[in-house]
């Protein structure tokens, strides 16, 4: 282990089991959740509220010939029916996406994916709204759909975005990074080069709570209050101001309790805009909540990357270079939520955890007749795809070299003394001790014993596999000069007020979807100021009450907002020092801090606690010049770099040789997310991400038939894992603080989702080694595993 984060006992904490600051405390938000008292979007009921429902296209590609809304409007409970034509008049038929493209809010010319929004009904209740959808007559002229991304650039492929002037094909972008010539030269002289196509199929974040909005437009004051399931309320406010033309100071976005996001709730969906239009048109609040099928079929999917990987090495197993070309299926509109300058997200971290001589990657993004989206499902802006590629390639190489995959990794890791480490695609990894994490994981797994057991089982014809993956994540964007979302720099604000009685409220710009922000951020303030976490209220999710910031996705809450909160607390602490000096009639430089208290150097009995100072600040103490009469502060934190959490995962599977069924028997996850704030919350995040990984590795995929029909429109068809498919997780950790983060913390939210799929697939491929199998694409369903054993596995897309 790198560092045991052994904190000295804290006199201000009193009770060792109830630490002030970091530690395993129960989540402050849970009492309301476990009592069923969470307040979600669909719990919101406003006086006079109407209900909206969306008519969706039954086909994937079709000219819109006509829409007849007469019968729907005749329904006694229908208030309005809005079509694309109506929106054209309002200049709202098309909305900008987060990737410099536009997306149809309602179809005006052509349907481009099955489930696309065609019309919006506003009715007195949601039953009437749904019934009225069937009363709208739409005529379509069906066109041949483009389903296969591999055919998107064929000369005879149907052009999906023919509304864009001059567009004659389906290419969205070509993007590359790394030195191609240098990489090719290394490959040309390498002893060993192995290639493998690696597919990460289209999957869906599938949060338990679907997306929805309640729009309340006050025509008298010109104010819009929009309750939304959003992970990024402030970005939404700015975009609504730009799109809808409502002045930003007249817009309030409220994100209530969110039942899971995973990136699915970053973008602005047509339904949100339609709820706003419905409220403006009707003069009443309008609620729209999508159903499960709508969520799965039309909202932001994830992945859909076809990756051609190549790895070069010496025959002794020194990895020299990596290169890849990726075909990225972005669906009908380029609506991926990612920093502007990164059309392939952070995929360029595909160099992984290894010290390479060269690397090059190129990515081609294409349109298809599928739902838009692309960066979601806890992927850290496509680090999932990157890690899956490199970790599969390293295993393919290990097989070629007949080396143990753990040994091969240990041989090639970036060494602790190489940090900060500049990789070949422009990232500067902040800190790491990869070997320590790998060795701890192997020790927890009993790696040598597992290999012995495997050898014995192979003798008996049993298929046991051991999979290793090692990931380096890149999370916590900014800095703002390098990363922005539609021009908004990726930074986050925090405001802290310490009330006269010493209780505090901290207001943050990020929004929890279940991550435990109300606890974690209170703990950071507690650690910095010595105020118990239960005395600190965390306010988030309401743009009227919180400072501006970019929101929660890409595991950025702790790296960015966590930094902001630590810094704002330090700012308060420094202000408290000045006030304490005044109160103690001492020069501030003669004061010393212990948690929760400034005291006179050399005389610890003379001091003032934060609560006393807060009362002083608001009281009658004569304050030093330039010090306001409060104990408040605000900051906007622009991180100097991202943080690079990492981890070593080992998975043990058993494969039924007769049926191809995979059982994940054990999973050992060693994570390093730097300074650990609340270990219980970290473990919860890891457990959830590992479960995601089992889902993706074994069962999740959004498939389409040749006609462009989505075959994953319900939870009967889109499988997500249950407790029955997952083992008891075995977790461990090392602590390598980030050198630039105010408290040394890195993100943890997506590590396990990023790191676990390759461990599971590597284990399955390892189990199938006796059959000569070197690769199996996800999802490793029984049928696909059996096909691989027969030597006839085909890629899923």
């Amino acid at each position, binding site marked *: 282990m790198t560092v045991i984060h052994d904190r000295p006992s804290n006199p201000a904490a009193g009770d060792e089991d109830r630490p002030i600051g970091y530690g395993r405390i129960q989540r402050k938000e849970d009492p309301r959740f476990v009592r069923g008292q969470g307040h979600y979007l669909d719990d919101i009921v406003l006086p006079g509220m109407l209900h909206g429902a969306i008519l969706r296209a039954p086909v994937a590609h079709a000219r819109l010939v006509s829409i007849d809304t007469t019968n729907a409007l005749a329904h006694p409970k229908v208030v309005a029916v809005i079509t694309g034509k109506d929106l054209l008049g309002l200049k709202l038929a098309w909305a900008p996406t987060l990737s410099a493209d536009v997306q149809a809010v309602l179809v005006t010319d052509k349907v481009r994916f099955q489930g696309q929004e065609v019309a919006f009904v506003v009715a007195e209740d949601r039953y009437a709204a749904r019934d009225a959808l069937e009363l709208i007559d739409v005529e379509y002229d069906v066109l041949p759909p483009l389903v296969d991304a591999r055919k998107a650039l064929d000369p005879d492929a149907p052009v999906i975005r023919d509304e864009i002037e001059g567009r004659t094909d389906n290419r969205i972008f070509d993007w590359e990074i790394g030195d191609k010539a240098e990489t090719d030269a290394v490959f040309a002289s390498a002893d060993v080069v192995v290639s493998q196509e690696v597919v990460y199929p289209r999957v869906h974040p599938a949060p338990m709570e679907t997306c929805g909005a309640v729009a309340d437009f006050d025509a008298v004051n010109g104010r819009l209050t929009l309750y939304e399931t959003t992970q990024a309320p402030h970005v939404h406010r700015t975009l609504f101001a730009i799109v809808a033309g409502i002045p930003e100071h007249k817009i309030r976005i409220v994100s209530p309790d969110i039942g899971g996001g995973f990136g699915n709730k970053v973008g602005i969906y047509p339904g949100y805009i339609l709820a706003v239009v419905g409220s403006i048109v009707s003069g009443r609040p309008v609620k729209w909540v999508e159903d499960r099928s709508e969520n799965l079929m039309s909202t932001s999917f994830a992945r859909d990357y076809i990756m051609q990987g190549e790895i070069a090495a010496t025959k002794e197993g020194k990895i020299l270079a990596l290169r890849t070309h990726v075909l990225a299926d972005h669906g009908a509109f380029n609506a991926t939520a990612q920093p502007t300058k990164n059309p392939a997200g952070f995929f360029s971290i595909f160099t992984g955890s290894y010290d390479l001589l060269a690397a090059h990657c190129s990515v081609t993004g294409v349109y298809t007749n599928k739902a838009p989206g692309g960066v979601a499902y806890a992927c850290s802006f496509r680090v999932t795809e990157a890690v899956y590629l490199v970790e599969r390639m390293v295993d393919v190489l290990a097989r070629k070299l007949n080396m143990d995959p753990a040994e091969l990794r240990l041989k090639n890791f970036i060494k602790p003394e190489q940090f900060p480490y500049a990789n070949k695609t422009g990232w500067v990894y902040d800190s790491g001790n990869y070997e320590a994490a790998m060795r701890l994981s192997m020790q927890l797994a009993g790696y040598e014993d597992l290999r012995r057991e495997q050898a014995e089982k192979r003798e008996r014809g049993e298929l046991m596999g051991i999979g290793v993956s090692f990931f380096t994540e890149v999370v916590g964007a900014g800095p703002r000069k390098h990363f922005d979302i539609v021009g908004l720099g990726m930074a986050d604000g925090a405001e802290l007020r310490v009330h006269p009685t010493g209780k505090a409220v901290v207001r943050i710009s990020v929004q929890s979807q279940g991550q435990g922000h109300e606890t974690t951020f209170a703990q950071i303030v507690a650690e910095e100021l010595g105020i118990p976490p239960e005395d600190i209220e965390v306010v988030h999710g309401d743009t009227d009450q919180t400072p501006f910031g970019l929101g929660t996705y890409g595991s950025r809450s702790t790296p960015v907002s966590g930094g902001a909160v630590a810094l704002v607390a330090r700012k308060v602490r420094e202000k408290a020092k000045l006030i304490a000096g005044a109160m103690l009639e001492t020069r501030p430089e003669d004061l010393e801090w212990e948690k929760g208290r400034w005291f006179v150097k050399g005389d610890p009995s003379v001091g003032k606690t934060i609560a006393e100072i807060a009362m002083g600040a608001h009281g009658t103490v004569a304050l030093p010049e330039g010090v306001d009469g409060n104990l408040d502060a605000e900051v906007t934190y622009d991180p100097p770099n991202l943080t690079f959490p990492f981890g070593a995962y080992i998975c043990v599977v058993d494969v039924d040789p007769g049926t191809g069924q995979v059982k994940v028997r054990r999973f050992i996850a060693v994570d390093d997310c730097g300074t650990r704030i609340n270990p219980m919350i970290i473990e919860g995040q890891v457990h959830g991400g590992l479960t995601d990984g089992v889902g993706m590795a074994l069962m999740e995929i959004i498939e389409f038939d040749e006609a462009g029909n989505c075959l994953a429109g319900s939870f009967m068809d889109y499988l997500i894992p249950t407790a029955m498919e997952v083992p008891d997780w075995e977790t461990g950790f090392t602590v390598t603080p980030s050198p630039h983060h105010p408290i040394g913390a890195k993100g943890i939210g997506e590590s396990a989702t990023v790191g676990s799929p390759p461990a599971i697939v590597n284990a399955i491929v390892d189990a199938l080694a006796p059959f000569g199998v070197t690769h199996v694409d996800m999802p490793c*369903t029984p049928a696909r595993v059996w096909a691989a054993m027969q030597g006839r596995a085909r890629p899923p897309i």
Partner: protein
Amino acid sequence: MQIPAPFDYVRATTVDNALELLARYGPESRVVAGGHSLLPMMKLRLSRPEWLIDINDLYELDFILRDGNKLRVGAMTRHTTLLESDEVAALFPIVRDAELVIADPVVRNRGTIGGSLCQADPAEDLSTVCDVLAAEAVIRGPRGERILSMSEFHRGPYETAVGQDELLCELRFGIRPRSGSAYEKVERRVGDWAVGAAGAAVTLAADGTVDDAAVGLTALGLDHPLAEAAAVLRGRRPDEELFARAGTLAAAACDPVADQRGPVDYKRHLADELTKRALRRACDRAAQMQEG
């Protein structure tokens, strides 16, 4: 929230009352028991009955009782009850095998054997179980009671002999000595429909040879017990070679369709593999019963 098309709802109090309601509301009425198939179909608006006749108060149909050499199971018996019944497990271990892999506890607490059979989904596990156990279906209607064999009961996917104005009330299973049964299923995930499954029931003669046998497949395009397998097994002493022959016959006889759960070749392979496994276990159990 997925919203079904408008419908009316009435709660039946007895079997007679349910039959009256079915007669009163006619072809646009549907009986709802556990509701785990009908309600999702209604929410997707694939099914749009005008009336739902709820039979969950028909406690008279919730029973498991032994009556001479028959085991009688009421149509409203929940999956959980069947799963937890030691008597059922001792007589017909295939039932517990199957119930363990039917959906999840939440579904099993509501779903019923009668509902499962009447839904007649090609992937319905209990259809195969009842087939290989040669169950009888007791149906009541305005013209009285009739008792059908499973081959008479099944009319193809989503179709049974139960008339619109009738109610499946009971299943009867013949109890035979020296018998064993088993169910083997492959699913992509707990709670998913079967990729494929096989059920087997075997009765041994006193000399240990097979007296009678039945093999059935689920979700593999074979909607009746495989007569060829029974013929091959009868009179022979169970062994691996015999199981392999039955497996080969099952693979040849089935007619699966490719879907997201798997391609045809895999499903055919499952027919073979799972038939072997089910027969092996059924024969082991029959032999144990013989010894016991």
